[in-house]
């Protein structure tokens, strides 16, 4: 399916197209992080979540309020959980660069615990087919 978007498109059509693209990218990053929850994958996922959240906030007026609210709540939870993982990834990288080894076992253990919660969250998201649901809830296929 090909779409043509011009500077003269209505703002709503434009918003729908941008949201479609961002949700596609987010879904891709969710699946990527589910397969391999490494530092880069988690970072890229967080960037995708932020981009999608920002667009949702910015173009929120064009979409159903309850759906927007529900999605933003889910995204917030995802950001909180991945933040704990990200902090440990940054710290582990710092320790590696500076040659400190003392804290590594504790941090790796903590990361694993958060990663288990994260994987469980992703499993729930995928089993509910979140991207199709969100696309439907936000009527993103209408244009």
């Amino acid at each position, binding site marked *: *399916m*090909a*779409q*043509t*978007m*011009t*500077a*003269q*498109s*209505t*703002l*709503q*059509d*434009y*918003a729908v*197209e*941008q949201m*479609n*693209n*961002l949700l*596609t*990218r987010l*879904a*891709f990053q969710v699946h990527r992080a589910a397969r391999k929850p490494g530092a880069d994958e988690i970072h890229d996922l967080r960037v995708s979540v*932020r*981009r999608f959240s*920002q*667009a949702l906030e*910015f*173009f*929120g*007026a064009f979409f159903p309020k309850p759906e927007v609210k529900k999605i933003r709540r889910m995204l917030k939870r995802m950001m909180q959980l991945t933040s704990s993982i*990200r*902090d*440990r990834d*940054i*710290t582990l990288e*710092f320790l590696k660069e*500076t040659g*400190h080894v*003392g*804290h590594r076992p504790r*941090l790796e253990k903590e990361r694993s615990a958060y990663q288990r919660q994260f994987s469980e969250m992703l499993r729930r998201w995928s089993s509910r087919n979140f991207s199709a649901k969100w696309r439907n809830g936000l009527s993103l296929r209408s244009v």
Partner: protein
Amino acid sequence: MKWKPAQSAAENARAVLPRMARKFFEAGRKAIAGDHPPDELHRFRLRTKRFRYTLELFQPLYGPGMEGYLKSLRQLQGALGKVSDYRAIRRVLSDDRELKKQIDAAVKGKLKDVRRSWRAFDSAGELKRWRAYLGGVPSQRATKRASTKRTKPRQATKKPPGMAGPKALAQAAG
């Protein structure tokens, strides 16, 4: 956000983005001057990200000319990110006094980088240049999207083909 649904996406962008740029510069001047309270700097870092992502939402309308603006924003965001990283490390390693001292020294250095980045970002005439660019007429040319294949989403920063450059924007503006 106060939109004018009767107007096109380009007209809305032209109305909203210059104002957003002005507010962003004002927030930066406030956050980076003085003692850099961590919370304020953190809020400004998040604001920088939001501003960048918002501009990227409209990048297809402005074309590749926006890349230079986004690049300077990314540099600033990078400097702010380093401070944030060290603060995260400090939090995680809060029980290690020795490392905390080392991290605090690193944060000081990174704050200098933030100030340097901000000075470059907010040099003379920059806000005016930003506002003039964002308030210009975005491309009238159609942007052909390739496919919306779900498994391979496009890179958000990838330049779409066939976009108008600054000269075309100026011509379109008359």
